[in-house]
């Protein structure tokens, strides 16, 4: 953790009173720890983004095109005509303030421009001045503002201080979704070359190599092979992990962090153990090895370009349907965008579980099933031998990731699975889970080291909820089904609530799963199971449904 970060007690001194000064005249200070660095030119170039150059947000001169205002206005006009959401959300906000204290960045920073209503007003005021009759005639009185460089800097600062988590949209009486507004604003900023690196670089890497770190195909294969070896060491079972295998029944796509990062890695081990145990005929793909889609944080075009790989690869390999791993925003794209953008997937078949015969009717058009849906069905049909006591050293809580909860409604399935693989499960307070879940504070491309203070602030509400169950129930691991969560919650929890680990649900499944011929005494992290090591006989009873 960087040394210049304040102590938790200091950072939690949050003043919710807005300043006396009006909000309409911005002056943004790009203070270290509160913003993200600009995109690296060669990566922006690789994606063919407009107006590529070397620059940084803290520079006085951002070297934007001379006609930047014209470009922005033209971009707004185009998007107002293309998105009803944008037009309606610009027009109907009554500033009732119901959203104000629902944003994790507002709660963690007290900065009034992090109230969703005001974040939207940053853009709405420009819209009113230039696109509405009242604003054109009455200007300021009608709530209009001129589009100045300072306003532009303010946009950059605050629209890259929104994680597109949609919590505000749950509370808005008109469903105004700040994620949608932020997406529009980020597209507009992109038009004049204002991008951040932790969006553009992963997007460019995914486009080229198939994963966000830019690791080449053989490196991907090494990672998977290494995991296979490690799983054998831990369990004594040698599993297969086919890559680019034509004619497999199922293509499996996970977020690439699962095979490069920790604690994601234990989830990967869980997937491998599970697929082996049920004898799934599946394949990984090195070309479409990233389900996570950083394009979502950039623009619909880049989102579509990255997402297209999944269907193209499914077609090339001739699989029947696609299974998707544990990831949050990846599932927003797969659930709400993929079929529209890159469908119809008429070359695939309606997903049927080869193990249980269950038809996944809720995916009959997209043909892509969430692995938690898939496993829920396996457990319900008693197809897995599970010994939840092997997770008794874990006191778990579950963090609903924003997108599965609010852009999909995947709420009960993960809980069902957890209850079958863990004996000690404690929910966080109700205002912090399910559709009201708080973001990790680092989503939508903001999970960088340079942005650490803002991340700690944005993650404060979630961490505080974890602290509650940590103190009350002794929770020592937070489970989640999102790669960004797994990457960014460990430092967050270490800061706010030390002593709580982060893991995936498939890690717990991997621990509880009794594999044929296994010899194991530890969980997937190498931690010994509680009590004596269990033999095959003890674990035969399968978990009961909850």
């Amino acid at each position, binding site marked *: 953790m960087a040394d210049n970060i304040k102590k938790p007690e200091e950072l939690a001194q949050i003043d*919710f009173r807005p300043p006396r000064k009006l909000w309409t005249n911005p002056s943004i200070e790009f203070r270290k720890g509160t913003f993200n660095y600009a995109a690296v030119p060669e990566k922006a170039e690789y994606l063919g983004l407009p107006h590529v150059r070397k620059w940084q947000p803290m520079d006085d001169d951002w070297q934007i095109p001379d006609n930047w205002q014209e470009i922005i206005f033209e971009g707004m006009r185009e998007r107002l005509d293309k998105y009803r*959401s944008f037009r309606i959300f610009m027009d109907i906000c009554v500033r009732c303030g119901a959203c104000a204290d629902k944003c994790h960045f507002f*709660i963690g920073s007290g900065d009034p421009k992090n109230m969703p209503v005001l974040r939207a007003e940053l853009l709405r005021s420009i819209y009113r001045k230039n696109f509405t009759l009242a604003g054109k005639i009455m200007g300021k009185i009608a709530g209009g503002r001129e589009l100045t460089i300072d306003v532009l800097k303010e946009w950059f600062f605050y629209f890259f201080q929104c994680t597109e988590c949609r919590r505000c949209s749950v509370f808005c009486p008109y469903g105004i979704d700040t994620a949608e507004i932020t997406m529009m604003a980020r597209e507009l900023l992109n038009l004049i070359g204002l991008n951040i690196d932790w969006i553009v670089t992963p997007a460019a890497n995914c486009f080229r190599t198939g994963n966000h770190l830019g690791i080449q*195909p053989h490196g991907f294969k090494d990672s998977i092979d290494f995991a296979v070896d490690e799983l054998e060491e831990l369990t004594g079972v040698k599993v297969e992990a086919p890559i680019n295998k034509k004619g497999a029944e199922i293509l499996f796509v996970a977020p690439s962090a699962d095979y490069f990062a920790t604690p994601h890695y234990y989830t990967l081990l869980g997937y491998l153990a599970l697929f082996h145990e049920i004898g799934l005929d599946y394949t990984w793909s090195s070309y479409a090895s990233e389900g996570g889609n950083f394009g979502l944080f950039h623009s619909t075009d880049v989102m579509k*370009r990255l997402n297209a790989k999944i269907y193209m690869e499914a077609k090339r390999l001739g699989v029947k349907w696609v299974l998707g791993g544990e990831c949050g925003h990846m599932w927003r794209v797969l659930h709400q965008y993929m079929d529209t953008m890159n469908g119809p997937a008429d070359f695939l078949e309606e997903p049927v579980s080869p193990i249980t015969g269950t038809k996944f009717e809720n995916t009959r058009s997209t043909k892509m099933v969430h692995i938690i849906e898939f496993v*829920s069905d396996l457990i319900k049909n008693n197809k897995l031998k599970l010994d939840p006591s092997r997770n008794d050293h874990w006191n778990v809580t579950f963090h609903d990731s924003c997108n599965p909860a609010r*852009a999909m409604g995947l709420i009960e399935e993960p809980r069902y699975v957890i209850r079958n693989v863990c004996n000690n499960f404690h929910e966080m307070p109700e205002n912090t889970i399910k559709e009201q879940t708080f973001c990790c504070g680092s989503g939508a491309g903001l999970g960088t080291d340079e942005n650490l203070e803002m991340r700690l602030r944005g993650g404060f509400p979630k961490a505080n909820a974890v602290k509650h169950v940590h103190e009350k129930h002794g929770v020592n691991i937070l489970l989640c089904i999102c790669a960004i969560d797994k990457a960014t919650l460990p430092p967050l929890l270490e800061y706010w609530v030390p002593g709580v680990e982060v893991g995936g649900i498939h890690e717990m499944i991997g621990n509880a799963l009794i594999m044929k011929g296994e010899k194991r005494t530890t969980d997937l992290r190498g931690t010994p199971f509680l009590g004596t090591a269990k033999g095959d006989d003890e674990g035969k009873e399968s978990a009961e449904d909850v």
Partner: protein
Amino acid sequence: MGLIIALLAVALLILIATIGAGTLGLHYLFGIVIPYASLAVFLIGVVYRVIIWAKSPVPFRIPTTCGQQKSLPWIKSSKLEAPNSTLGVIGRMALEVLFFRTLFRNTKTLLAKGPKLGYSSEKFLWLAAMAFHWCLLVILLRHLRFFVEPVPSFVGLLQPLDGFFQVGLPIIYISNVLIALGLLFLLFRRLFDPKLRYISLAADYFPLFLILSIGTTGALMRYTSIKANLIPIKQLVTGLFGFQPVIPAGLDVMFFIHLFLVCALIAYIPFSKLMHMGGIFMSPTRNLANNSRIKRHINPWNPDVKLHTYEEYEDEFREVMKAAKMPLEKE
């Protein structure tokens, strides 16, 4: 700033009506021309705005799910919070439009020492919004007895219900009391909650003051000695609605002020946030079913984008893939 502008604007409107219809006696202008003009602005304006909204397509299916999706048959899905059928969507919208479902969910965040965050239910905004909107409807319906002849029977039923408590003479309507309380709560909230005050624009205070003034002038005419002379008012209004406008004798200034403020309000609607009453029906996060994996949603402008094909990928990495013994399309 916004507060003062809004106050001045409403004061100016009252002044215009007082001088115009009172001092100058421009009854024809204030009784016939302006009502027709404002009605025309309202109708054309609202239709225009809705057409503009409708012209922009809904490229993606983006409902905000506030409950369990429909997935496996044995998992109970939330038919109203994450609707997967049209019927569910209608139910969700009905709850939203009639009962302000979402506002009912409202919470308040509190930061205590520890640091410890707490969230308490905050229903006052919901209560005030319900009181205001429903009473506005009741009052509007009650006014039908001035507009049409014969008076519809349900209006006759509404009146004794609304005056159920039989307090005061003339009997005080419950709706009048509730709407005043609702409006004042909404106003005071804006003034005394620092966050609300910070975000409030003139356009937020103006409708509040305008509606409060309309209510006040109406109440003055009903409950005080400035009692309105109902017979000419009804003649005027039925004339307007029957497109046979007449200016009867005996109309008071207070009535003209009341009428002028109403005209200002309805003409203001299409240019303002008051369009939320139409917008809610068209909000894509609320009015779409959560069935995007079941039924393909079509984007009419789905763009052609530059893709990175598997062939290009294999061309770039063939050597390393070969060395790693990975399957290839072309050796």
